[in-house]
């Protein structure tokens, strides 16, 4: 099998991530004041902070997106994150396609993901596919750049995505559906009900895309344009079906029990490189995640909080290419099973000092079945224990916070048999890893409108089972791999100013990161590759996120990112060159105008994004030019009926965009969305703002 198909398959496999889900107690809240599902009045023109602060660590450089933002702007999670400072989302195709998150130039494998504060475990190294996440069922997204809050886990190399699902507090339901270019369709519905002690909610989402957009076909002969033609992308259709179900039972004043289930199914064609499109190759993925959390407060000490979460998840992935359209015939199914137990206890100790202790254990395995030969591949497994301690100090009067934390982890990984097929030598190999991470950070509320911060972080990433033991032959394992380590220095400040007619909020960060023992896939020949600790890299940059409201009707949100990512491996062909697929600069801007006319609210909006050219290969030979994406649309809301209609155009200038040569992306697309909310405006408690920094600002609407 040629490695020409490997980028696609790796990405697709990478999207086949494990995840875990649990409903638990937000660290700054109590069981009786959980962040609630906002009601329509606040969702349409709510009292929203311009740049909400991160809940778990005020010393962090963070991006925060609320569910209201996502739903108001009808943004998918990949779209929303791609417009944030320091973040980039890569997609292989159009609407609904797998999407991977990169933070500060770090790859998606280096980003830790937490859903309702329970870690998404990734035994085989697959990062989370952002397109799996239903934007309609999200309460809050927090992205911690270059760090992990001590209440969540050990320090990561790239950063942390913390996702909070909508909490079951309202009574009623909502449904919306849309249709767009190239057969894009989506329907999403949610319902919720509650009594005094019990709250239940659920949601379902279906997505379909034909993906049959046109692209320029050059027949591989770039120097001969006479055989060029416009072709339609084929075998690029996808279907997604997913849902959530959540329940919370208030046992008594001190204890509550939460349960969550999250399922996401994907079936899609694997179109192959544009030059040799496939007709039947396909990918299926089924993710089932469940968690139960016991939440308590004032248990052993006044104002302490405890969370015990038991999680289990199963991820099945099937790649089916019986005709070998992508290279070698391939028909495999992979099952990843993981169980985890996590305990977090937060308590005041004395005076300004409090403590966050964390203990967690995890066990899981990866099993692969080869459908062509009917054989089971060797099973890989891992068990790990992790302990963490944070000792935040907070001087209320001076506004100074110092947050030291440390974490240790022991991992035991092994492969169970030495059978091999094909191309691979496998040994019964045990890999032991001991990891430690630490962070020291401080923030100071110097003035009511200004809060600088500084931090130093040592993060690690253990090699995954895929990296240690390879796959079914194309990728060779390397059981001697060392964990990646990253040292990050951060400085930043948040500032905010309000006046009668306008407000402005700015958050700026600068960082320097040195990553060593980078695990990278290197080709050993045209048919095989293997992971090695072959590289190191230096990354530094500046990130600025700004938001302003003018004349109570115009809202502008923008970001700028400068990222310098250099290879420092010392290898002659790469040293000093830019890391591939990391644009040096990016700009994004969105402007929303609100105009009320009777019962209708009109909201035209425009979006723009500029991205610098960058290289697609480590040797810095293959460059793609800078591109500018412009979009816009109109959203109309009928408040009494709680109905909205939105028309949106993306990439209005039809700019050619390439994230990966061979996998063209669609040009201009149009999207039409209709939604209806039906919520009982009862006395459901509104959410308590869980973070002191998330001040409300003046109503947008008059």
């Amino acid at each position, binding site marked *: 099998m*040629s*490695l*020409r198909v490997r980028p696609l398959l790796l990405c697709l496999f990478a999207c086949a991530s494990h995840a875990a889900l649990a409903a638990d107690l937000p660290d700054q809240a109590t069981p009786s004041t959980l962040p609630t599902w906002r009601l329509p009045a606040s969702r349409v023109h709510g009292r929203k902070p311009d740049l909400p602060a991160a809940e778990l660590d005020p010393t962090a450089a963070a991006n925060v997106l609320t569910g209201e933002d996502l739903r108001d702007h009808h943004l998918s999670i990949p779209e929303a994150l791609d417009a944030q400072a320091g973040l980039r989302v890569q997609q292989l195709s159009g609407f609904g396609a797998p999407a991977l998150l990169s933070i500060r130039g770090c790859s998606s494998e280096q980003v830790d993901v937490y859903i309702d504060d329970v870690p998404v475990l990734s035994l085989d190294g697959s990062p989370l596919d952002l397109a799996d996440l239903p934007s309609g069922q999200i309460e809050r997204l927090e992205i911690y750049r270059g760090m992990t809050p001590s209440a969540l886990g050990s320090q990561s190399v790239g950063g942390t995505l913390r996702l909070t699902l909508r909490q079951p507090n309202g009574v009623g339901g909502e449904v919306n559906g849309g249709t767009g270019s190239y057969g894009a369709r989506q329907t999403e519905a949610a319902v919720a009900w509650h009594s005094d002690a019990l709250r239940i909610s659920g949601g379902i989402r279906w997505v379909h895309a034909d993906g049959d957009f046109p692209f*320029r076909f*050059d*027949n*591989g*002969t*770039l*120097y*001969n344009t006479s*055989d060029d033609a416009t072709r339609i992308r084929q075998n690029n259709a996808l279907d997604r079906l997913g849902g959530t179900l959540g329940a919370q039972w208030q046992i008594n004043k001190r204890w509550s029990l939460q349960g969550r289930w999250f399922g996401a199914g994907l079936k899609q064609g694997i179109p192959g490189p544009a*030059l*040799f499109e496939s007709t039947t190759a396909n990918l299926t993925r089924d993710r089932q995640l469940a968690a139960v959390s016991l939440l308590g407060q004032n248990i052993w000490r006044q104002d302490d909080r405890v969370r015990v979460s038991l999680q289990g998840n199963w991820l099945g992935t099937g790649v089916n290419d019986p005709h*070998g*359209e992508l290279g*070698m*015939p391939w028909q495999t199914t992979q099952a990843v099973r993981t169980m985890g137990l996590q305990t977090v206890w937060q308590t005041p100790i004395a005076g300004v000092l409090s403590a966050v202790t964390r203990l967690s254990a995890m066990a899981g395995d990866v099993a692969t079945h080869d459908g*062509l*030969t009917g054989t089971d591949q060797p099973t890989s497994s891992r068990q790990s224990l992790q302990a963490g301690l944070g000792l935040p100090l907070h001087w209320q009067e001076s506004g100074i916070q110092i947050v030291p934390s440390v974490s240790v982890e022991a991992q035991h990984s092994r492969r169970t048999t030495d059978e*091999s*097929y*094909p*191309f691979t030598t496998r040994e019964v190999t045990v890999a032991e890893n001991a990891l430690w991470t630490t962070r020291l950070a401080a923030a100071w509320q110097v003035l009511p409108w200004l809060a600088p911060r500084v931090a130093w972080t040592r993060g690690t990433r253990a090699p995954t089972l895929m990296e240690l033991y390879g796959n079914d032959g194309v990728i*060779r394992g*390397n*059981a*001697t791999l060392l964990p990646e380590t990253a040292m990050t220095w951060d400085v930043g400040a948040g500032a905010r100013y309000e006046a009668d007619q306008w407000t402005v909020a700015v958050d700026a960060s600068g960082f320097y990161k040195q990553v060593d023992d980078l695990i990278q896939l*290197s*080709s*050993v*020949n*045209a*048919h095989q*590759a293997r992971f*090695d600790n072959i590289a190191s890299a230096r990354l530094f940059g500046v990130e600025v996120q700004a938001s302003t409201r003018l004349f109570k009707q115009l809202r502008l949100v923008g970001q700028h990112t400068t990222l310098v990512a250099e290879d420092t491996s010392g290898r*002659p*062909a790469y040293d000093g060159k830019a890391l591939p697929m990391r*644009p*040096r*600069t990016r*700009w994004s801007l969105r402007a929303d105008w609100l105009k009320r006319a009777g019962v209708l609210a009109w909201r035209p909006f425009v979006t723009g994004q500029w991205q*610098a*050219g*960058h*290289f697609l*290969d*480590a*040797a*810095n*030979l*293959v*460059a*793609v*030019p*800078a591109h500018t994406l412009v979009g816009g649309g109109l959203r109309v809301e009928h408040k009494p009926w709680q109905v909205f209609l939105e028309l949106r155009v993306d990439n209005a200038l039809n700019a*050619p965009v390439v994230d990966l*040569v*061979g996998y063209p*992306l669609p040009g201009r697309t149009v999207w039409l969305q209709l939604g209806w909310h039906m919520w009982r405006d009862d006395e459901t408690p509104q959410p308590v703002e869980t973070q002191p920094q998330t001040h409300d600002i003046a109503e947008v609407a008059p």
Partner: protein
Amino acid sequence: MRWALLACLWAAACADDTRSAGGDGTYEAAVPAVGDRLAVLGSDYKSSALSLLAADSQQRVGAALWHSGSLVSAATTALSGDVALGQTAMSDGRIIVIDRGSAVVSFWDPLTRAIQQIPVSTGFYSNPQDAVPIDAHKMYVVRMKRNVQPTADPGDFDEGDDVLIVDPSDGKLLGRIDLSPWATLPGYVAAGSRAVRIADRVWIPLQSLAADFSHQGATRFLAIETKKDTVIQIVDAPSVKNCIEMAWLPDLQRLVAVCPGAYVDRAAQGDHAGIVVLAPGDVTSTTTLAFAAKDFGGATTLGRDVACLPGGHCLVATPGEPDSGTHDRIWRFELTGGAPVQIGEGSGPFAVSGMTAIAASHRILVGDRTNAAGDVRVFELSATGTVEKPATTSNPGGLGAIDFGVF
């Protein structure tokens, strides 16, 4: 001053790495005469670069003269990461580049930098392995992959697992020679590899692979008569598998083939790995297992390249092992007999790739893509010994050599 400051700020805020990227390389010396042009292909299997040296002196003529980024579209790049050089020269000195990734054969003129391209995919990923010019209007292209969903029309030549016959002057497809019937196991893909032209015959080793790559049969060498485009001779090599590359010794009238053994049967790979020798002029010829892989320091497989000088002085490599940190090793062996002798070590595991013999200077060039002292290593062989000469860097600061071709 204020505008200058604003301009600087704007430049910093819109910095673009690719603005400083170099284009195609420049010539450092005159292009050698036809027959003395040593094309060096550098690659990390993700992107590729073509450099040019003088074959006789190994002096660099130009680095990265044509590379993956020379032209980029949404669908393809100028050169993919899976590229090889033709092993048979064209009479006009143009360099033959076989892009397996995009299934295109290109002719690159080092004098004018003009590029002619012929697609040989016929609608599927045909995985071409070699291109052998026959005359000005005829060329054989060995295609390894079988098309599992061909059209019913035999005239579109889209069946694959064949030798595609094309007219290099205009790219027109003239016909195909089906190799499938010649696989050593029924139903297997014949999977032709790198070819050697000897007078009016083109010799091709067949790898005989199961369609799902799960099993591999013994090797068969097959000769095609170039006037009639028919298979005229076969030589079976039941003791070896996966023969990839051959070297022709006109003085001895022998073909030397390197066979790494079946990767799909790792446990028994060493049992079917070795060096075999053919006498193509003898119609009753069978192969002789000249050396087993274990003769090379107990190796269980061999590299995919072999090069020989007149008199039967040859080089081959044995791959290292990343897990143990063992480097590749370079061996000399003699067709006249005697035990192989290790004459060098590669710069790492899987670093040595590509060999070519320069008969005039009694040298064999060995690609060592990560060698800091130069990726083109030079070994001068005589009857009495081997001397390693200073290596040449074909592409300073760029991708190291994995394949050679003399044109």
